[in-house]
């Protein structure tokens, strides 16, 4: 277990250990962990049925059939090699395997980076209705609280009411916003916005984009263009691009991540609507296939409802009963 505890230490944050996830998150993990607990109390020894039920629990959390089959095979092998039959131990192995699988894909810093003389530009992308605009408000709130000067850019000029929506948030937050006319070229709105942020010496500028399905080639090209023109104004920007994924998303989530990673430089995922009953297991499959890490999770509709992603808690909360 040396490796695992090492990785866990590395991932554990100093301050947040005592902090508990909000009620919402508790719901989905209680759900999951009570299923697992129930499972381990019904079985004295693990057998094929046990693993079948484990598979069901995993698949119902949306990790996908491939991920589920692979991880279960690993656990099965270990249990056979070492003659482990105790259901509780098996669950423990399962969590550890998932942890190592996730953590060994690379280092993760959740918080955004900040620079001396240039603003950090964060581009926010995703399919329709996943919570991009709301997440932007939440992130802005987070960094305003940390004393940063934050500005928003409403580059969704397509959806009716989108600019108004972000403007309402900017007013509530008391910060600047750059907007364009309905149907204006989003890239030029983004460019002007980033320029203004630079002039006003902002620390952080967050660019909202229209929701788009990854199958729309022209809209994906538009996104690539937005990214390009931002880079023209500030070298190396956008330094961060977040893909927003809705926790209710099924297997299409991996396809989405791949497609958005093709046209932007994805640096993180924010998984929203974790206050519901969906488990958001697709993030494990995405990390597995693409290596993109989850940075934050959305737990409600208000601007305070955002938390840093904590792998340890996510997996432990999901899989192991703690009392």
């Amino acid at each position, binding site marked *: 277990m040396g490796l695992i505890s090492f990785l866990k230490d590395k991932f554990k944050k100093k301050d947040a250990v005592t902090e508990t996830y909000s009620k919402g998150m508790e719901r989905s993990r209680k759900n999951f962990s009570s299923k697992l607990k129930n499972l381990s109390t019904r079985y004295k020894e693990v057998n094929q049925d046990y693993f079948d039920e484990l598979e069901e629990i995993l698949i119902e959390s949306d990790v996908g059939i491939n991920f589920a089959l692979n991880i279960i095979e690993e656990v099965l092998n270990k249990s056979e090699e070492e003659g482990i039959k105790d259901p509780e131990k098996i669950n423990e192995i399962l969590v550890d395997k998932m942890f190592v699988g996730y953590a060994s894909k690379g280092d993760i810093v959740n918080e955004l980076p900040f620079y001396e003389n240039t603003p950090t530009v964060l581009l926010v992308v995703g399919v329709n209705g996943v919570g991009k605009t709301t997440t932007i408000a939440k992130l802005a709130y987070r960094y305003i609280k940390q004393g940063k000067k934050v500005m928003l850019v409403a580059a969704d000029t397509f959806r009716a009411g989108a600019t108004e*929506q972000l403007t309402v948030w900017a007013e509530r937050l008391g910060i600047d916003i750059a907007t364009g006319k309905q149907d204006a070229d989003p890239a030029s709105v983004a460019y002007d916005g980033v320029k203004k942020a630079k002039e006003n010496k902002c620390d952080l500028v967050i660019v909202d984009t229209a929701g788009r399905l990854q199958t*729309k*080639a022209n809209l994906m*090209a538009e996104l690539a263009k937005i990214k390009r023109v931002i880079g023209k104004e500030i070298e190396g920007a956008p330094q961060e691009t977040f893909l927003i994924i809705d926790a209710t998303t099924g297997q299409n989530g991996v396809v989405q991540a791949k497609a958005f990673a093709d046209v932007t430089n994805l640096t993180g995922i924010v998984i929203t609507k974790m*206050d519901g009953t969906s488990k958001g297991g697709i993030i494990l499959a995405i990390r597995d296939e693409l290596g993109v890490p989850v940075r934050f999770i959305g737990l409600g509709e208000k601007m305070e409802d955002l938390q840093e992603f904590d792998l340890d808690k996510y997996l432990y909360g999901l899989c192991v009963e703690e009392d």
Partner: protein
Amino acid sequence: MAFESLSDKLSSIFKKMRGQARLTEKNMEDMLKEIRVALLEADVNYKVVKEFTNNVKEKAIGQDVLSKLNPSQMLVKIVHDELVELLGSDDSEIHYQNNRPTVIMMVGLQGSGKTTSTGKLAYLLKNKLKKKVLLAAGDVYRPAAIDQLDQIAKQVGVDLVNLGTKVSPVEISLKAKEKAFNEHYDVLIIDTAGRLQIDEQLMKELNDIKDAVNPDEILLLIDAMAGQDAVNVANTFNQQLALTGAIMSKLDGDARGGAALSIRHMTGVPIKFSGVGEKLTDLDIFHPDRMADRILGMGDVMTLVEKAQEEMDEKEARRTANKMMSGKFDLNDMLENMRKVQKMGSLGGLLKLIPGMPKISPEQQAAAEKEMRNFEVIINSMTPYERSNPDVFKFSRKQRVANGCGKTLADVNRVLKKYDQMKDMMKQMESYRKSGRMPPGGLGGLGGFGGMGGFPQ
């Protein structure tokens, strides 16, 4: 994730079991496994998959294989028929009232597409069914949701009851109903706030609206991308509100939409419409057979055929095909075909509909589409004589064409090369036709879409 259709996978399994004329538990085992994987990859709920595959197994065991089909095709047919039967319903229409307004209430999770679908439904009712439609803006929570519906109502050209965000949704709905009755509207559609199904306050609010206006239809919005939890969502909404139907949104993406099956199977609620794009015109009635193909990952062949038919009547298609086969295919024909393909929609969207087609990236798609446009520009600056006699092209003609449209010589050469390739392909197809075989892959019938010339190899 390579796009390999279920039928391909099954037929490769089947190759190992040639000569067996009956479906047995044993010879079906591997195939059923593949079917199970396909359904799970399509996000059909785990429990539904279990029941479904068991049903299929029971239906299939001992069935004699139809003479024309091999056992794997037979099994696909059984699965497909079973899916269509499950997904379909006699009750897939809106029940319109004759002597008073029909009241429709839209419900669903956040981000599932309620507000846009409200607009699309209004558009469909107004333009196709000639109904007088009234909308009610009942989402007073999401910032600017009412602005959004206001803009949509104006675009569609229907009236909206907008009382701002200070009035309760129940009151808004009541006022709207009053107006609908007094002013003789045919249909009232009420947009409501999206929230989680476990949000008791929202459920109570929806119930209050329901009690207040007594709607004829309560439609649940489901997202085609929804995962395993979709059944729980639908169950809760159904238990609380007694749904009359569902609309599946975002079917223009590439999600397989297994939630449609789960929901139908677990709640019995019929799917009535599908959302196929962001524009107001993008709402279709629901087609169970297409949905079945889609869930199985077999491509939406029907949609392709229909799209093709809309643009190309059969006679014309046959004429082009004959011309191609006889080798009298010239640059005019190539251009004409390209235009038709373009009219049918994005190349990527079309290719997705064809089973067995490799997946292409958005960049490849865009590149191919750009190349089609380039081809068009170049062919347009040729003389009519050149277009019908492409063999006359020598250096000077090519140079003139290039100059004429601001392209390079290499660009012109690419068009001519593509033309040659296509002509060769036509000849090949003709020999296939004469020998009575179709080319491998069975895409011969699509030869008419020669305009896909720009598609990267």
